[in-house]
């Protein structure tokens, strides 16, 4: 081939590669809370694996946080046509209960864009998660593991997520000790919610602790999730309730 043709060919190749490249670092899932987003450097990295741990008492809350993140991921502009996949093990379903459609729907995750895979063993769950991360038609993949997946497993999943641009979330039972190759690691617990004006239950409140973050500092925050608006809001600790017997004092409210 003539040198001119070769040059044109390489120029075309570069142009194609540029248009096809995934803008990896710009795809972050912003949580909507400035403090956390700043710590994460713009938001949760979109093409990576993240780990959420919770003690057995707080597993429901961890699942809720994962679902809230998945709900945000579904609403991102490019992801409107994609679905969410949840991988559950049989034993996990016995221990923490199966996902409940009406509840998910109210919580903010579109239940008809949700696929649920129920596997028998944790190793099957790892296989399913890897296959799902390789599929580009999913906005988020959430898997629940009872025992800790080891370092090699999380590294494989992390690579799969990075190569194919998918968001992977692992829910772990237990605390944060074991080594893992996830990009960010969180410890989730439930927090008391702020009651509404009638004294009833307020919006769902999470207590988050970011224990590993490559892009910024770690920290603890308390968030609430508004399931109608589907947004997170910060809730600072120590909000004093309005004094009912001292109407002349101002209510002390922060955050």
């Amino acid at each position, binding site marked *: 081939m003539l040198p001119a043709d070769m040059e044109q060919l390489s120029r075309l190749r570069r142009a194609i590669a540029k248009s096809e490249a995934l803008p990896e670092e710009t795809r972050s899932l912003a949580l909507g809370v400035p403090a956390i987003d700043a710590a994460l450097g713009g938001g949760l990295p979109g093409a990576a694996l993240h780990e959420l741990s919770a003690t057995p008492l*707080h597993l*429901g*809350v961890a*699942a*809720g*946080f994962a679902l*809230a993140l998945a709900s945000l991921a579904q609403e991102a502009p490019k992801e409107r*046509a*994609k*679905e969410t996949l949840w991988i559950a093990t049989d034993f996990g379903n*016995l221990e*923490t*209960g*199966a*996902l*409940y*459609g*009406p*509840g*998910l*729907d*109210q*919580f*903010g995750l*579109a*239940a*008809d864009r*949700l*696929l*649920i*895979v*129920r*596997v*028998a063993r944790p190793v*099957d769950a790892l296989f*399913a998660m890897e*296959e*799902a991360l390789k*599929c*580009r*038609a*999913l906005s988020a993949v959430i898997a629940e593991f009872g025992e800790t997946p080891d370092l090699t497993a999380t590294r494989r999943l992390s690579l799969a997520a990075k190569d194919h641009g998918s968001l992977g979330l692992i829910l772990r039972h237990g605390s944060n000790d074991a080594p893992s190759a996830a990009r960010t690691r969180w410890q989730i*617990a*439930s*927090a*008391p*919610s702020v*009651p509404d004006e009638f*004294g*009833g*239950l*307020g*919006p*769902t409140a*999470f*207590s988050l602790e970011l224990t590993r973050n490559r892009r910024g500092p770690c920290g603890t925050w308390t968030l609430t*999730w*508004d*399931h109608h*608006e589907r947004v997170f809001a910060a809730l600072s600790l120590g909000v004093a309730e309005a004094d009912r017997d001292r109407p002349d004092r101002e209510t002390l409210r922060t955050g």
Partner: protein
Amino acid sequence: MWLRRIATDRIAKRFAPDEALIIAAPVKGALRLSAVNDAAAALGLRAGMPLADARAMHPAIAVAQADERADLALLEAVADWCDRYTPLVGLDAPDGLLLDVTGCAHLFGGEAALARDLVRQLARRGLQARAAVAGTVGCAWGVARHSASLPPPERGRSASAASRVGVSSHSMTPTRRTSCVDLPLSGGGEGEIVRSGEERNAIAPLPLTALRLDTDTITALAQVGLKHIADVLDRPRAPLAARFGASFVRRIDQALGLEDEPITPRLPVPAALAEQRFPEPIAHERDVLGTIERLAARLAHVLEQRGEGARLLQVVLFRADGKVFRLEAGTGAPLREPRLIARLFADRLDVIGDEVDPGFGFDIVRLCALVTERSDPQQTGLATPDHDAELAHLIDRLGARFGLRRVMRQMPQDTHIPEFAVTAVAAASLPSPLRGGSTAVAQRRRSGWGSEFLLTTASNSHDPPPQPSPATRAFTPVFDGLWGEGARELAVSLDSPFPTRPIRLFARPEPVDATAELPDGPPAQFTWRRVRHIVARAEGPERIAMRWWRDEAGRTLMRDYFRVESRDGVRVWLFHEWPADPHLAPRWFVHGVFA
């Protein structure tokens, strides 16, 4: 095909080759002979004789117990093996098979060659068979069992099994008669071929037992003096029907081809198949997978011409020693791509690979599309990647690996009872909701096929789900009308900052110890999984009761549900159950967990 000595051949290995062997079965309390082998027949023993007589005649004869189930299992195994000749194999219990070789015979060099090969292969495995190829089931049946040109069944000739082989297969040519292949028959009666149009001549010399009549009719006919079919062929039908029953006349018509008699295939006949035969059997898994991919390419060509895709695929592996393995994989959407089909079966073999033992190798690999569906080619954009197809393929692969029922979506049900408000439906059986409101109507192509996936008629509403406008978003849940009316109305009316339904539900509500301040009120504290929680806030009760007309069954379900938050922030869905028996104390359960 008639396996003459199936009962004795099955156990022949346990005895010396020329030893006389009889099989005894209890008939009405007395032991009678149910089967004899050739050597015993040569000694003059017949089926139906009492065992005592037989023992009296030959005290040292070998006797075995009859086992019909094992004989049937052997027949099924032979039928499985005969699948290599034609997919349409019917059982003719207890000792025969019917094969429809229309259109298959040319692959084996003609009907006679097919018949010869069949008998020879069976003989190598120690089974005696007699075969006949004819245009109708009745004719073939009769010729195989009673034809005089084949060595007669009960003649006293001692001959080893190998020399007395007759192939029995049956070709049912449609009414548009295709010509039978005219090949010379080799000596020794190896195969009897009845050319189309010659059924009449073929069955004429046979005795009337060749018409599959019951013994009463035969005796009645014998009493009148009718012994051979030739006697009745030319008689007027009406008096025969009146005297001996309509079924008699129908059998004659079936044998002559005037009435249709279809063969009921043992297994569903595939809509399309591609197969590969190997002169040397293959045993490596990657060779098998490579073959499957090539076969899938051929199958794709056929399906494309018909405009169809496969919904249920089956790979049949014929092992060299006769065992047959069948693997299936179902898909959610009609599939034609060879590469994707090969991947599906790679996953399948991964899961069940240990059970498929190649032994000495597989000599035939066949890929069938058992259920197909119309699949129109869709225009895909150049820029937008095809998410639907990728997702469908992921569902198929996970289904192939774990079972299609384990990949599911949740469908709302119209009931206020929480456990039943949602059912899980296999995702493969539902059309993707994102395909712009298409009404996918997938109907069951073959009924009676107990496959693990469902073909349902499902139609999406043609309107997309209503997009919540910012003003109304606080008041309407995202999907109108899809989920239980109870939950939706509750959310709308309360506009609660906290969801009314939990995100996780236990299959069995877990009992807790709870104490309440008021009998109808929420608990003040509860102990769940050995952890004590003190209730900070609670909302409820929400009474969910079974519909009143179920009370007659004695089971009333009346529950007061509370959404409860403990001091630490743990939020659960508790209920207080009132049992039907008023004497029992009401109990508390945890049914679900909120975030």
